[in-house]
């Protein structure tokens, strides 16, 4: 899933400081599951805004709405009937949501309330970790099912650098050295030969380096 985190509330308040009517819009997709943009967080943000503006003695009217997903235009359409009551929209979806809203309602101000972080999963309750960098050409089968592109701080493709330390990355003891894991796993599997092969430089053409990406599936697209 897409993992995101909420922006500091003061930043959000600053974005909307000149508005009197805002609509807070959540999404029931990834951001609900990662506890950042579902029904719960919509209410928390809306309440926080009300308290803050009451404190600032600046009137505000905050609406609350949660959409099924903000990455499909049909659901964005559901805002049609209520959006006119507001000057601006705060989206708690990943980076896709506010853009879809902005595209659909060009006259409205749209604000992102979350920072989209990475593609990852929950390794335990409340802890998410990055697993994929969206490079466009998956190579994890060479590496025991682990991705050095997303999970090595230096995206090294040919083995651990000299900074690997007790299974942790030189960048921070919070980060696992993925190469330590890859080496141990492949050696345990008796795949030393694979480790000794020199992997050639990767083509980044499939990644974002090749320009903004778009995908058309001929068999699906109209």
């Amino acid at each position: 899933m897409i993992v995101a985190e909420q922006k500091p509330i003061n930043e959000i308040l600053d974005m909307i400081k000149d508005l009197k009517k805002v609509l807070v819009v959540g999404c029931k997709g990834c951001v609900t599951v990662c506890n950042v943009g579902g029904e719960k967080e919509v209410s928390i943000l809306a309440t926080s805004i009300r308290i803050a503006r009451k404190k600032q003695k600046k009137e505000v009217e905050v609406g609350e709405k949660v959409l099924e997903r903000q990455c499909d235009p049909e659901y964005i359409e559901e805002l049609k009937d209520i959006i006119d009551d507001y000057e601006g929209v705060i989206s708690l979806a990943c980076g896709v949501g506010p853009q879809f809203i902005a595209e659909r309602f060009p006259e409205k101000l749209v604000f992102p309330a979350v920072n989209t972080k990475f593609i990852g999963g929950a390794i335990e309750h409340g802890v998410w970790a990055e697993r994929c960098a969206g490079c466009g050409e998956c190579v994890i089968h060479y590496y025991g099912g682990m991705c050095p592109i997303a999970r090595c701080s230096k995206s090294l493709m040919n083995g651990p650098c000299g900074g690997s330390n007790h299974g942790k990355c030189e960048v921070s003891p919070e980060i696992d050295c993925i190469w330590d894991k890859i080496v141990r796993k492949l050696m345990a599997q008796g795949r030393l030969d694979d480790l000794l092969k020199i992997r050639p430089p990767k083509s980044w053409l499939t990644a974002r380096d090749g320009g903004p990406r778009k995908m058309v599936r001929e068999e699906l697209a109209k």
Partner: protein
Amino acid sequence: MTEYKSGSNLEKVLKAGHFAVTGECGPPRGANVELVRKKAQYLKGYVDAVNVTDNQTAVVRLSSWATCLILKQEGLDPTFQMVCRDRNRLAMQSDILGVAAHGIKNMLCLSGDHQTFGDHPEAKNVYDIDSIQLISMVKKMRDEGKFLNGEPIDVPPKLFIGAACNPFAEPYEFRVYRLAKKINAGADFIQTQCIFNMKRFREFMKRVVDMGLHERCYILAGITPLKSVGMARYMATKVPGMDVPEEIIKRLKGAGKGKAAEEGIKIAVEQIQELKEMEGIAGIHLMAIEWEERVPEIVKAAGLYPRPKVD
């Protein structure tokens, strides 16, 4: 007549079978050419080649290639260092051509410390290719006369290719294979991380020799004289992949107040003596960090002065 890959002084010394000594010069944090020249004077005549670091520890410094040029003017044989952090494959290849064009003949290929350690932690890193891919790219440019994309180079760069090796980083059991991988990729010489734990290094070298890796490439053992107990502690705890055994720290402490530096140099000299006898070791790489002025003394004490002249 011997066939040289680049014909650098270092390559010649090694090929002639001498026990090589390389030094290191950290470029200044500015365009202070005088400082570079001063450091060069300390080293001149005492080392066979001088490594010039490339934004070491991700701190911005005078560029490696520019510093190399100054050293060359001072009559030293510089080793151009390049890390994968700051350049993509285009910039790398053009810089490689650049140094070769100016007569620089050694190059050390590294991954580079992560930028979060340095003075611009907000920077975007590149890591387009990794150090091993860099080694093979340089080799391809030199030996096949081709760019990475396979297109021909008009006058290929002649460089003696080096790589780094840290026998003390984890996973230990893999380190010797990683060394093999670098040699397979095309490394002509290896400079190791500073060695303090001689026991572990002996074990490592035994595996290197067993695998015959020392016959395929020159291995220079990294030596850093310790200036103080504080420095030793810092190295032991703060620098990733560094193994400073407690007895070394004890020994420095035991030397008494104000005498730790002398003891540090003594330890370094003892290490060099042992390394001279160690099978598979072709020389040492002396990294006297911000302590270049003591290099002559160490080289002399280790019986490695004067340096041989090979033509």
